[in-house]
């Protein structure tokens, strides 16, 4: 059985949070979908809340704590990401954005990403399309077509009109699993292993 590394990032602030609840359900669905394709998912779930101080310290001083550096490395080496933010003021939360601001440039390039969010009402759902999706497009990630928004009412009702939350979760997870099945990432090349030879640097290449 082959394996893929799945990293889930939850930017919920309360404990427990509905953001984490959605993150867990998406993770379980993706794991199941990969399993259906005989791929074992190795999962790393990251609660940004636990590293909020470290993220801020890295933003203002450049110094990453050993734990945050591990997280950054884990994200860079993931074969796929599930990222979940609460929607604040019509956009991702500040903590969510700050975390992606401290990643190394290019570390998400080409990586499959499932975007998801939580909010009080469904009126916030398009923040996924006008805030999260463009940010990940800028980072050159491959964002799956289905973005999952869970409003407070979704946790109770069995869908009013559109697909139920459970079905949207499965559809998005299936899209992510298909992309992860097709590609693997070793993480960025180690610049300390194979430096550009000096003659090339000197020749301006």
């Amino acid at each position: 059985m082959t394996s893929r590394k799945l990293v889930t990032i939850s930017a919920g602030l309360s404990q427990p949070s509905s953001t984490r609840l959605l993150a867990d359900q998406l993770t379980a669905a993706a794991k199941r979908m990969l399993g259906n394709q005989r791929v074992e998912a190795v999962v790393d779930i990251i609660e940004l809340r636990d590293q909020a101080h470290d993220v801020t310290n890295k933003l203002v001083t450049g110094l990453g704590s050993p734990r945050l550096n591990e997280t950054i490395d884990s994200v860079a080496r993931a074969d796929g990401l599930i990222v979940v933010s609460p929607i604040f003021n019509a956009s991702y939360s500040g903590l969510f954005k700050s975390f992606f601001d401290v990643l190394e440039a290019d570390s998400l390039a080409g990586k499959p990403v499932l975007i998801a969010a939580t909010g009080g009402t469904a009126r916030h759902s398009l923040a996924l399309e006008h805030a999260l999706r463009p940010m990940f497009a800028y980072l050159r990630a491959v964002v799956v077509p289905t973005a999952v928004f869970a409003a407070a009412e979704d946790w109770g009702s069995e869908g009013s009109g559109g697909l139920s939350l459970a079905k949207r979760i499965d559809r998005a997870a299936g899209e992510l699993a298909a992309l992860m099945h097709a590609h693997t990432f070793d993480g960025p090349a180690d610049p300390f292993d194979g430096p550009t030879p000096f003659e090339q640097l000197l020749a301006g290449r």
Partner: protein
Amino acid sequence: MQFGIFTVGDVTPDPTTGRAPSEAERIKAMVTIALKAEEVGLDVFATGEHHNPPFVPSSPTTMLGYIAARTDRLILSTSTTLITTNDPVKIAEDFAMLQHLADGRVDLMMGRGNTGPVYPWFGQDIREGIPLAIENYHLLRRLWREDVVNWEGKFRTPLQSFTSTPRPLDGVPPFVWHGSIRSPEIAEQAAYYGDGFFANHIFWPKDHYQRLIALYRRRFEHYGHGQADQAIVGLGGQVFMRKDSQAAVREFRPYFDNAPVYGHGPSLEEFMEQTPLTVGSPQEVIEKTLTFREYFGDYQRQLFLMDHAGLPLRTVLEQLDLLGEEVVPVLRRELDALRPAHVPEAPTHASLKAAAAAAEGPSDRASHDLMQVVR
């Protein structure tokens, strides 16, 4: 093994009193600190170069020339000289002039500078930082080593039949270190030329610098300058001492908490755990500094940052007394005893002059000496 201090030259208000020194006071304080470094037996004083407030040292060779006239032994250096935004011709001239005035007690450390606006202020582009560092330094080396230079490159106006004056003292250019916080290209550059490599070491965790220095050592050997463990490595460090370590922590904490760059970030305790900073007794400083050798191998130069974040001059001078009397003699003895015989000391003007004479061969040397006599 060389020990010394490096200064950023920041004008920062003392957080315990709110008082900021004037530029004049800060500049004179830097000179006083350099003179003190020689008095307490340190080997090196290095000044930063900046072109924006709140920093004062925009003109390093002016300051170092003045210090040269008032010292006898101290090696005058930089931390760093901006190889990206300075004209390499002016660097060649300024530091050769300083060499003559200081009787050879000069080396310098190349750095790129990471203040965005400084690049356009000097007509450059920060995105070209690495290519600027590569091309400008290559020209600088030629200006010191060839009497007449014809040159054309990408960044500077061409030179035809140009002679940089004065020529380096005794025909021996100053030794060069390359400072870097994170770029493998700069480690590669230092290795290619067999120059020194200085890891600032202050703001990033040690495993990062271990990889950067390991790369430099490996490539130094690759380019045929000697074995990897013979490469010339310098490290930064940062300390604050009192006899009693609680007293040191209590006194330094407000300076740490409000320091430029890392203030209002990690706690003092976290920063001490993750970086070379030691706040404590002289014995604790000795113990922590001795671990650097375990992580990076035998190295040639240790510089400490002692005078930033608004620390009063009097306090800095007390720190230098402790450093010179209680810390450096022990480190010198311990590190010299541990260093294998085949690992060289950092090059100095005298050692480079002797090496050049040996390379020239006896007959050439005789005629060279004769020329000197004739002159």
